[in-house]
């Protein structure tokens, strides 16, 4: 952090250097997500590598059976050797949606930070952006997570005969994103109150 007069007085002050670093960090997160969730699968597609899909299914371990030890399902990674273009595109959908949401959230955070830095944080556009960010986190992230289920089901159903084996998928909603979204919604409400206070002070002599 640059040693400005303000930062010396208040170590938690968010100065210009902090804003640039935060924007850089968010941009890096989006780039890494794009590379991992879209770039790597697209590269595997170009190289003709198998398409991996995770699924859950019952597992049999004779040694554990013999010992009388209980055990549950196992996670399998099914690899499609020669998937169609449609399956490849379908497999890319959750990753693309995740990257789009992350980029949208980053843009909203940057816009809010710019408004705060300009000294006009309590404007209506800032409240609207914070509420949109809350929706992206609390609704968008779980929706993307649930979208993966039918897509994986369609991928496996299109090319795999489970042979009577019970196939299931793990549902892991992104609770952290939901909680963060609710917190941002609360923050937006605080900005609404701040806007009212600012209106009260305007024109005060």
């Amino acid at each position, binding site marked *: 952090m640059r040693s400005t007069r303000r930062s010396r007085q208040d170590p938690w002050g968010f100065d210009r250097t902090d804003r640039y670093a935060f924007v850089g960090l968010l941009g890096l997160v989006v780039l890494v997500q794009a590379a991992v969730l879209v770039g790597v699968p697209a590269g595997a597609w170009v190289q003709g590598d198998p398409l991996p899909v995770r699924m859950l299914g019952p597992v049999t371990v004779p040694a554990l059976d013999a010992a009388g030890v209980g055990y549950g399902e196992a996670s399998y990674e099914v690899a499609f050797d020669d998937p169609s273009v449609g399956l490849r595109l379908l497999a890319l959908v959750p990753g693309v949606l995740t990257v789009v949401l992350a980029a949208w959230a980053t843009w909203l955070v940057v816009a809010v930070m710019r408004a705060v830095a300009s000294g006009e944080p309590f404007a209506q556009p800032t409240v609207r952006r914070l509420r949109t960010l809350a929706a992206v986190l609390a609704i968008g992230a779980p929706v993307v997570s649930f979208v993966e289920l039918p897509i994986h089901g369609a991928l496996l159903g299109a090319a795999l005969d489970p042979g009577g084996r019970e196939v299931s998928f793990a549902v892991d909603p992104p609770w952290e994103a939901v909680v963060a979204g609710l917190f941002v919604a609360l923050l937006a409400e605080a900005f609404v109150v701040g806007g*009212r206070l600012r209106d*009260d002070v*305007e*024109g*005060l*002599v």
Partner: protein
Amino acid sequence: MPVDEPHRVVCHLDRLLEERGMTLAALAEAVGVTVVNLSVLKNDRAKAIRFSTLTAICDVLGCQPGDVLSLDPGES
């Protein structure tokens, strides 16, 4: 519930200053507020006034709050 604008409070600083041969800048300096803020008050563009500001204006001009501000009867 906040009261919506517009209000009907009228400021008489113009007349008070003229009667005393005082400028707005001199009053601003004596009161300790900016000329811009006093100008806002004088031209009826202020939405609110602090009691401390009103007290200082009355002290400098030797008047009562009712001499500085009055309510326009309007159409009611």
